[in-house]
């Protein structure tokens, strides 16, 4: 692995320092992976939606002149463009908050990755209350949106912020209740333990017994990430671009592009972990344990994440935007009652020892 002279120096370091360096490297690795994935996802979105709408999507900027990878470098070109642009702070804006807001959106979107278990061995922080941590952090992103809207000193931005606040509060409740169902099934708040509770092939995944909760969670996830058809906070045809109308350049990139897509990947990852057995193989128990395709590995997690990301894009290309009052109605009067009802059903199942709760 390491050259000898490096290994010697390494052994000299204090154990604390060693683990600090290792953890830092791991964090950097995960963040880099997320950022690269975000870049690729923006491209994938434009491509997928393009093909769904019978056009090609970006196909000009190429790497190394390879014809079949045309368009692959598009996201990097976009990033360079955005970083080079000037950040304009509107007149009479609250400057400090205006610049702070993008960071407030960004930090939770990235920090949540700390508790996502990528494989049986690899998770950055094996926190006992991991699920709560996820919920707490995902609820923070809304501050960035509200502050961005308020600090911009612009009517459209402010309207976007108000919409976003109301929407987040409504859907967070449904999301939280859906997660309550998951932790009732797993008996733990630790994400790794939740995955392990679903061992035994695809038939023992949570999604079957918790199907309504899965739907609610995914729909709430769409709403929490402000994705279509719940993108009223942005609503470009009604309020121009909502909360980020006044942002430009790097602030726009960090406020809007990076967190939104990072959150999409996060919601997909969480859906996989909570309902689809995370890094577990669907063929586990149906094939020899030694077979590569029945062993748990991060490959399966990434495959599942990819599927859900495709659904995100698919939904965006398919559905028109909800009207604001319809969003409120769906959140409060449909999703929350469904979750409440299903939690009651689940407790009866658990009490009588039916299904996954059979001792």
């Amino acid at each position, binding site marked *: 692995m390491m050259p000898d002279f490096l290994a010697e120096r390494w052994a000299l370091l204090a154990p604390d320092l060693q683990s600090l360096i290792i953890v830092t490297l791991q964090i950097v690795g995960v963040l880099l992976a997320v950022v690269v994935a975000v870049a690729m996802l923006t491209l994938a979105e434009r491509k997928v939606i393009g093909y769904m709408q019978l056009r090609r999507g970006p196909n000009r900027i190429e790497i190394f002149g390879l014809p079949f990878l045309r368009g692959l470098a598009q996201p990097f070109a976009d990033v360079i463009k955005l970083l080079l642009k000037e950040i304009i702070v509107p007149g009479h804006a609250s400057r400090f*908050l205006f610049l702070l807001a993008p960071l407030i959106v960004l930090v939770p979107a990235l920090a949540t990755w700390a508790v996502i278990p990528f494989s049986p061995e690899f998770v950055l922080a094996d*926190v*006992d*209350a991991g699920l*709560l*941590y996820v*919920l*707490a952090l995902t*609820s*923070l992103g*809304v*501050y960035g949106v*509200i*502050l961005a809207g*308020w600090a911009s000193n612009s009517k459209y931005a*402010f309207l976007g*912020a*108000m919409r976003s*606040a*109301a929407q*987040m*509060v409504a859907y*967070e*409740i449904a999301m939280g209740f859906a997660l309550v169902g998951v932790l009732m099934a797993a008996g733990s*708040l630790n994400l790794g333990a939740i995955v392990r509770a679903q061992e035994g092939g695809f038939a023992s995944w949570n999604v079957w017994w918790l199907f309504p909760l899965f739907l609610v969670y995914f729909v709430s996830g769409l709403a929490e990430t402000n994705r279509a058809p719940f993108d009223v906070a942005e609503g470009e045809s009604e309020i121009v671009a909502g909360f980020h109308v006044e942002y430009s350049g790097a602030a726009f990139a960090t406020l809007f592009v990076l967190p939104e897509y990072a959150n999409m990947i996060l919601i997909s990852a969480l859906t996989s972990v909570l309902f689809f057995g995370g890094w577990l193989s669907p063929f586990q128990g149906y094939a020899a344990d030694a077979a590569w395709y029945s062993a748990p590995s991060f490959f399966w997690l990434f495959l599942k994440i990819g599927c859900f990301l495709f659904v995100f894009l698919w939904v965006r290309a398919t559905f028109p935007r909800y009207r604001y*009052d319809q969003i409120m*109605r769906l959140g409060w009067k449909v999703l929350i009652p469904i979750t409440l009802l299903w939690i009651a059903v689940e407790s009866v199942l658990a009490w009588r020892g039916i299904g996954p709760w059979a001792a």
Partner: protein
Amino acid sequence: MLVAILFWAFSAVLVGAALGVILARNAVHSVLFLVLCFFNAAVLWLLIEAEFLAIVLVLVYVGAVMVLFLFVVMMLDVDIEALREGFARNAPLGALIALIVVVELAYVLWVRRLGVELPGETAPLAQGASNTAEIGAVLYTQYAYPFQLAAMVLLIAIVAAISLTMRRRPGLKAQDVSRQVSVDPAERVRLVSMPPEREP
């Protein structure tokens, strides 16, 4: 040592943010300072290994309650200067009451130090013991009754809030979904068969 440094640092920020809440000239800034307060309080809890309480504090207060606060404060556009008009006049009285409370608190703390045996150093949780499970075990046994009562308080708050705010006002443009669904085309559309105006 590290914990002590962190404790003092976060406590200092906490106190500073609390002062910011009452001294900020803009109501939105006050709310944001309060958010900062909650965060630092959560960190203090983390330092004593009460991670469940810390995360729940962030989840409930920062994630939900303060968002609503912010929503309301932004909507209402509170003019804090107007609210402060009588401040100088009542300040001496307020200061007096604050002083009394501080003296009382100090006295109680001091008396405790002298008179009552403190619960002593709390033993750290055993390795592997889950903070969340421990709280759950106490909450659903020893404090099951108060816990249920608190649930009733919340239920009443919901019923009261809804019954006081929700009422049918005339002229409201909200859509009635069940009416929309149950519309009969025959009532709305009249199909008329007309002869073409001019023979081709």
